């Protein structure tokens, strides 16, 4: 049984009939994975949100299937990761095939990430992620999710945005303080803002078939360069939950897009790959062209772009949704402070700065993968094939094989929110970098460090509470009660009274943060390091906090 996307009831607000204008704090356009996650993030922070989506159903077929560790950590903060990990498929073994060799040129084992809560990557259909997120939103009265509501116009004025929304029964208006455009790569918001979407289209196409096999195949990722069943091209096989397999065939530029996706034209490819007698059913067939594009400004007035609306990458390396979730993670806390009047709108400049950099690096990574997978010149193909031939025999050459790299979070080493190190550190987590997880315990219960970070500013204090002077403790109390509160967490085997404490049961926190006794880390609400010092200095901390909130 192929997946049937759930249908939701289209919402016709009262304003359609009485011609009134609705008010909300944040209008989010687009209930794809990014809009949904942002609605949950801002909704859990208590803001009034209207989320409109053109269709009344989820997209049929899964687009994104690979969810990397950092997005899973973000979704864990929002409370939907556990379900995804439980439903998802974890794979460790990957095999790379070349030409007609039956044996892989090599195989690799993605060792599970040690001593961290979440795996390096799971495979799960995008619609499960969306469904879980929608269910979580059901519990929030302050978030209105409106299917069958399309943004058709807006005016961006200094005090807010006046948006025109179309439904099947007529139009109405929403007056919002902020508009977040998560309306995908064809974003009408972007077009209405007159923004360019510069970049590159790769002259190649990929045919995707999501199929269910009768017989079980191993849970491995297989990648073929120039195989006999797809000569001169590449192919990829990936497992999803529910015994569904994704097969990607590179098919070249000159194709008939309608013909190529007909089941009768896809089946011969699958039979050539798995044998004449293979039995399977189709879930979804689609064809897509690679694009790498990005806007040169993610914020304009009171309109903010996130996800595919702001950047598009080729799917090798699974960076689309994975990057978009990190846009949301970066945006939510900043907008929260601004809405609550605790930070200036200028703070959003850092969203643009940090996430534009991330988009740029993602595009660079995915362009490199695409160039390796689909070489553009004779010499590029010669080098690619040379790498593959060498790698069958020599381990060192495998490093050059690029069939899509794991999507990793992009650090912001030059962000204006960072306080650069003033002393030398033997490693650890640098300012502008996301925090590493580690096992901890509190009150005898095992926990994960990252589950104690996020939402607000946190200060990790690598000391016992008894090591601090009364003046220092008073300083930490004031920080916790300040306008923008900073919660102190002692990394210590002792309870810390009025403060929280985490016991570093395996010494890995100290290790991973290269923290000597007395060291402190100031951590942003998106679990990125803002600054760190070998010892607590309250005035330096105050300056760093002002920087990290765009006030300096």
């Amino acid at each position, binding site marked *: 049984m192929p997946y049937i996307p759930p249908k939701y009831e289209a919402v016709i607000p009262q304003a359609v009939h009485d011609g009134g204008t609705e008010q909300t704090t944040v209008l989010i356009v687009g209930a794809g994975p990014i809009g949904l996650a942002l609605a949950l993030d801002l909704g859990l922070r208590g803001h009034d949100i209207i989320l409109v989506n053109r269709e009344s159903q989820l997209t049929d077929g899964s687009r994104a299937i690979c969810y990397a560790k950092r997005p899973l950590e973000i979704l864990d903060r929002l409370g939907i990761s556990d379900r995804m990990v439980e439903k998802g498929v974890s794979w460790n073994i990957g095999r790379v095939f070349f030409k007609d060799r039956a044996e892989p040129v090599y195989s690799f084992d993605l060792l599970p990430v040690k001593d961290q809560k979440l795996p390096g990557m799971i495979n799960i259909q995008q619609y499960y992620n969306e469904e879980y997120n929608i269910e979580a939103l059901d519990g929030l009265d302050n978030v209105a999710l409106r299917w069958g509501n399309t943004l058709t116009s807006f005016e961006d004025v200094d005090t807010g945005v006046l948006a025109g929304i179309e439904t099947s029964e007529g139009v109405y208006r929403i007056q919002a303080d902020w508009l977040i455009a998560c309306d995908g790569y064809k974003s009408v918001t972007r077009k209405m803002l007159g923004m360019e979407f510069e970049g590159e289209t790769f002259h190649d196409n990929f045919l995707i078939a999501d199929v269910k096999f009768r017989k079980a195949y191993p849970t491995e990722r297989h990648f073929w360069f120039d195989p006999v069943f797809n000569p001169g091209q590449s192919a990829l096989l990936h497992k999803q939950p529910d015994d569904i397999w994704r097969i990607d065939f590179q098919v070249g530029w000159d194709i008939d897009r309608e013909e190529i996706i007909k089941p009768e034209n896809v089946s011969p490819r699958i039979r050539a790959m798995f044998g004449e007698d293979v039995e399977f059913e189709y879930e979804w067939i689609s064809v897509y062209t690679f694009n790498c594009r990005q806007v040169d400004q993610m914020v304009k007035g009171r309109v903010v772009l996130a996800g595919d609306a702001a950047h598009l990458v080729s799917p090798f390396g699974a960076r689309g949704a994975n990057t978009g979730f990190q846009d949301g993670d970066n945006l939510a806390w900043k907008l929260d402070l601004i809405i609550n009047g605790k930070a200036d709108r200028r703070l959003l400049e850092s969203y643009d700065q940090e996430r534009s950099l991330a988009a740029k690096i993602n595009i660079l990574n995915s362009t490199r993968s695409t160039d390796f997978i689909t070489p553009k010149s004779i*010499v590029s193909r*010669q*080098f690619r*094939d*040379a*790498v593959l*031939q*060498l790698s069958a025999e*020599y381990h*060192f*050459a495998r*490093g*050059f094989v690029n069939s899509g790299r794991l999507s990793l979070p992009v650090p912001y080493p030059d962000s204006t929110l960072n306080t650069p190190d003033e002393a030398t550190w033997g490693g650890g987590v640098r300012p502008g970098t996301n925090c590493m997880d580690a096992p901890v315990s509190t009150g005898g219960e095992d926990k994960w460090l990252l589950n104690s970070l996020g939402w607000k500013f946190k200060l990790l204090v690598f000391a016992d509470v008894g090591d601090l002077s009364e003046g220092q403790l008073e300083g930490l109390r004031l920080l916790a009660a300040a306008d923008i509160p900073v919660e102190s967490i002692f990394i210590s085997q002792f309870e810390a009274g009025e403060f929280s404490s985490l016991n570093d049961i395996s010494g890995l926190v100290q290790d991973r943060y290269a923290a000597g006794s007395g060291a402190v880390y100031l951590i942003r609400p998106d679990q990125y390091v803002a600054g760190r010092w070998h010892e607590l200095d309250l005035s330096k901390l105050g300056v760093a906090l002002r920087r990290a909130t765009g006030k300096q």
Partner: protein
Amino acid sequence: MSPNLILEPNLADYDEVYQKIIDMHSGLSDEESQSANAKLILTLANHIGDVGVISEAVKIARDNTLQWRKKDTQS
């Protein structure tokens, strides 16, 4: 101004090294020769293990080639 890449003479026996590179190609088709060249570059790049040094060498190889292109078209 090349702090890493050695541009001073550095081989004891140039003739021998040159001959080894030419001999690598004996009996190979043009296509195989291209493949062998690529493998040689990749193997040496790994041995060097320093992106700075490799970048400098890449620049020299490219710039020198472009200079000769100019000379060819001028003559």
